[in-house]
């Protein structure tokens, strides 16, 4: 260890099936540079084996470990302790909002994942398509473009942070609309316009940009929803004049 350890109290949301909610406090010795997920895993390993939480890759490619940390959505595998508290402080850990809770910190991502399939969202695309359009042009090779996994980790944090998703589960939500936007950019698939052009599609968004603020991975769903509105309008105007 390079520095002195901190004493931090983790207040963890607990709820088992059909039981009431409570918070458990775990006083922990932590390295300020270690990640929030590492401490949660240690709580499970040494303090309370009944704690459930989602995690897989531990480096921000899989998107499984999104949680609310002191009220804000964080990908816990890349969030160092020193970004969310101080020596002697607290770390309140809760599951994502706007998803059904299965137990403790585990939410049900099923409906969300299936909606991403409705948006025909490809995880691997060309390097060029994987980047935001206003980024500088990426390296290309002689016989075509490289392949890259897209930015969206499907972590659901944008849905958790969205004030509209909180009021209705019918709203498709930022990740799904951002996925439809990317599919449309790559394929011009008209189904993406009909998916988005609904009360619970692009028109429901309040442009609060909470989604873009919490996104750990450069997706910028807020901008994509606004751009998708333009695409929908353009298509309507085009239809009107070609009648």
């Amino acid at each position, binding site marked *: 260890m390079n520095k002195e350890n901190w004493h931090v109290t983790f207040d963890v949301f607990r709820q088992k*099936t059909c039981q009431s909610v409570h918070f458990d406090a775990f006083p922990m010795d932590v390295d300020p540079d270690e990640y929030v997920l590492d401490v949660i895993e240690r709580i499970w390993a040494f303090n309370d084996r009944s704690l459930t939480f989602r995690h*897989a890759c*531990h480096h*921000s490619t*899989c998107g499984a470990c999104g949680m609310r940390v002191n009220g804000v959505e964080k990908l816990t595998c890349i969030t160092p302790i020193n970004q969310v508290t101080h020596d002697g402080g607290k770390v309140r850990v809760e599951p994502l909002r706007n998803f059904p809770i299965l*137990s403790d910190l*585990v939410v049900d991502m099923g409906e969300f994942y299936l909606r991403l399939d409705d948006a025909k969202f490809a995880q691997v695309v060309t390097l060029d398509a994987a980047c935001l359009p206003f980024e500088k042009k990426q390296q290309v090779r002689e016989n075509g473009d*490289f392949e890259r996994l*897209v*930015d969206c980790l499907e972590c659901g944090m944008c849905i958790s942070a969205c004030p509209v998703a909180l009021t209705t589960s019918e709203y498709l939500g930022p990740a799904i609309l951002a996925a439809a936007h990317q599919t449309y950019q790559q394929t011009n698939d008209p189904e993406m316009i009909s998916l988005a052009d609904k009360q619970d599609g692009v028109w429901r968004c309040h442009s609060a940009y909470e989604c873009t603020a919490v996104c750990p991975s450069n997706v910028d769903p807020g901008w994509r929803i606004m751009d998708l509105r333009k695409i929908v309008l353009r298509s309507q105007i085009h239809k009107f004049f070609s009648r």
Partner: protein
Amino acid sequence: MNSKPHAAIIGGGFTGCALALDLQMRGFQVKLFERGEICAGTSGRTHGLLHSGGRYCVDDVEAGRECIQENRILRKIARQCIEFNGGLFIALNDSDVSYGDRFTKGAEECGIETEELTAGQAITLEPNLNPALLKAYTVPDGSFDPLRLALSFAATARRYGAEFYSYCEVTHLSRTNSGRISGLEFLNRHENQLHEIRADVVINATGAWAGNIAAMVNVTVPVRPTPGVMVAYDQRLVQRVINRLCIPDDGDILVPQRRMVLIGTTSFDHDDVDYIPVYHEQIKLMHERAAELVPAVKNAHPRGAWMSARPLIASQGDTRSLTRTFRCFDHEEQGAPGLITITGGKATTCRLMAEKTADLVCQKLGVPANCQTHDLELDSYRQYYARAGN
């Protein structure tokens, strides 16, 4: 009435998920038990390297051959979660250059296609490489998303009828009076309730944890949990996987993935695999090694650092020299008929591990069915969440 033989798989990593698909397609009714999320153990925390086999072709020809064969299969069946941009082995000093002859010979023996490049050609392909490099070879390496690879096997297995019990921890293996393993008891961790199921065969696919499951019925598995550290940086400095042209060593592979590059790894012994601390000095070592391959790493920011415990097949000696191939163990001789363990191996070879395990299971139970997973394109990983009965 369901007369299918019942198979219970313990462990929801790559091997368990691929095995669920293989056995379900061969006519078994499969139930898979995973104490956490799918891929929450070693599988999730892999480097994400789709091995060409080049890393092993000199000293571990068997592992090298398995890798290139499965690399080609996964590129066909799991395209949805693989970035396939190839890889390079680069020589940075004279000792690396002299290793090059053994490397090309080994690659040829394993059937791995390589092409020799001059330093200039390599720099043209990957401008961020260390300009001091002396020569390079191309290999068909790639990179994959770990959770999505496991889920795509699981999604396809579910469509064929396999049942997945995540957050269900196996607490006890049951036996008949004659001593045969006849099922298991598990704790549903969402509801804190114990349940029991019966099975004609139980397969222990818990990798680095295989010894813990075997110990429940007093048998042993020669698995040696061998953790290594990995560090992710916030810039995609290369498009191809960069390997150091040398005998396998600490920090010898740099893998691009999404917007990042990942450097790994180390190799040491650690007994308690439930929690492995990330050591600062190993992170520092990774940083130095990554910068030798691609100096621009010095200006990139670390995005994450983590540990993952390989399940190597135990033998005496240095962990680096342990084989990367896999083994199936039939515990009948040890007095636990009905229990089979699969461990060792690499993420890249998970489908083959499942095939060989299913072969053994079929042989033990007298089921005459062949593997059908070589050319079956996997379903969208998101369909793992499809409602049952769809």
